[in-house]
């Protein structure tokens, strides 16, 4: 349980948001060219990091907009929030 600073609405309770999982997984540009292994990687394989993770959230009970969050999954502290399409902050690895 934590607060998320929605870039459009400000700080709200996490229960207003829905988690979209790991961010920056690029949708295949040419799906017909993909091997089974590459499909598995895109669809199922996840970093599932204990530590600093880049992820997508949707303010589903608010503005309903998607954005990105940098969060430490070992203590649920949010380190940074940035909009869709923006480059992820470089000071987190």
């Amino acid at each position: 349980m934590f607060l998320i600073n929605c870039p459009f609405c400000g700080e709200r309770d996490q229960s207003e948001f829905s988690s979209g999982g790991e961010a920056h997984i690029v949708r295949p540009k040419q799906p017909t060219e993909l091997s089974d292994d590459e499909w598995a990687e895109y669809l199922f394989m996840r970093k599932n990091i204990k530590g600093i993770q880049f992820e997508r959230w949707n303010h589903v009970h608010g503005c309903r907009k998607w954005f990105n969050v940098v969060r430490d999954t070992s203590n649920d502290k949010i380190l940074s929030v940035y909009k869709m399409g923006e480059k992820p902050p470089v000071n987190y690895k």
Partner: protein
Amino acid sequence: MKNKYSLFSLIKNAFSQHENWQQAWGNPEPKKEYDAIIVGGGGHGLATAYYLAKKHNLKNIAVLEKGWIGGGNTGRNTTIIRSNYLWDASAGLYDHALKLWENLSQELNYNVMFSQRGVMNLAHNLQDVRDLKRRTHANRLNGIDAVWLNTEEVKKFCPIINTSPHIRYPVLGGTLQRRAGTARHDAVAWGYARGASDMGVDIIQNCEVKGIKRNRDRVEGLETTKGFIKTNKIGVVAAGHSSVIANMAGLKLPLESKPLQALVSEPVKPIIDTVVMSNAVHAYVSQSDKGELVIGAGTDSYVSYTQRGSHNIVEETLKAILELYPIFSRMKMLRQWGGIVDICPDASPIISKTNIKGLYFNCGWGTGGFKATPGSGDLFAHTIANDEPHKLNAAFNLNRFVSGDLVDEHGAAAVAH
């Protein structure tokens, strides 16, 4: 067994005020090398070591546990055991475990308090009714006991359920597996630890794995907080931390680790003599032998390793509990906790070899691994010893995410995810 527990040993120890009971398992320092190392000293890991020693004649085995044995999800679950899964592969896997449960106390000479009090799954809408009836038929075709109960029969089986048609999610019926039930979760870890230790397995607590040493495509050993340990077979049974260990070997798994919560009430006199689960409103409840109501809540929607979970999840579960059991309205909850569960996209586990020789994974049990403990250990031990899966866990390989041959058990998994 060196020191068999029996009525005789109980009487004998009574004369010395029970102060001279032997240690149930040893506390050794790690050796330089093992034939096989199990990473994770929970129920599944200890069971794996036990069956490796017992059935596959491997004696030089270690179990590494970063905390204390049974301190992770083994000690955090709601102890429900059942095998009423939909697909043939799952039915084989979970019923194999259930059959082992039925004789486990005798097998281990340790009372795991297995109680076949039945598990009832409730239906709250027409689709639930159709799905659960279908599952009942599928179960019976696989030789698993299952019956469909209508609303009156549900009420008769568990009289404290509110079966009024006027509640938000009325009870339209349910399924019952009478062979299902509960067990004492700690005792399972302790019983397997004692049995394994007795056969010479080294159980090494407070020893965290820091890295996996590889020589090209095969494993050579583990870097741990107690130094380097050489081995060419590593079985990882690390539940929520499976991805963390996999990353050490440069592997990615199809898992997401999320907090799953449970809570217990103050102890009261016997009021519910079975286990009732409701997937649709997300509430399940049973009563421990101590008298506490044991209530399972849901998972959080986001990846987290905090072993806490959000308050709103508990709130929703308790709302559902109160509507189904108005009699509990003045119960006080004593404790609440979270465990980190490793969830697979198809809600089925992975008991599998990997493309690294000597590295095996038993993970992805998600929200329902406790019920499978003996079967999971038995089949994982087979997989490690023979470098080939047993026919009961062949379907639960890692490659299914590439081939697309998934075992979709979202309907039978208790916790919606």
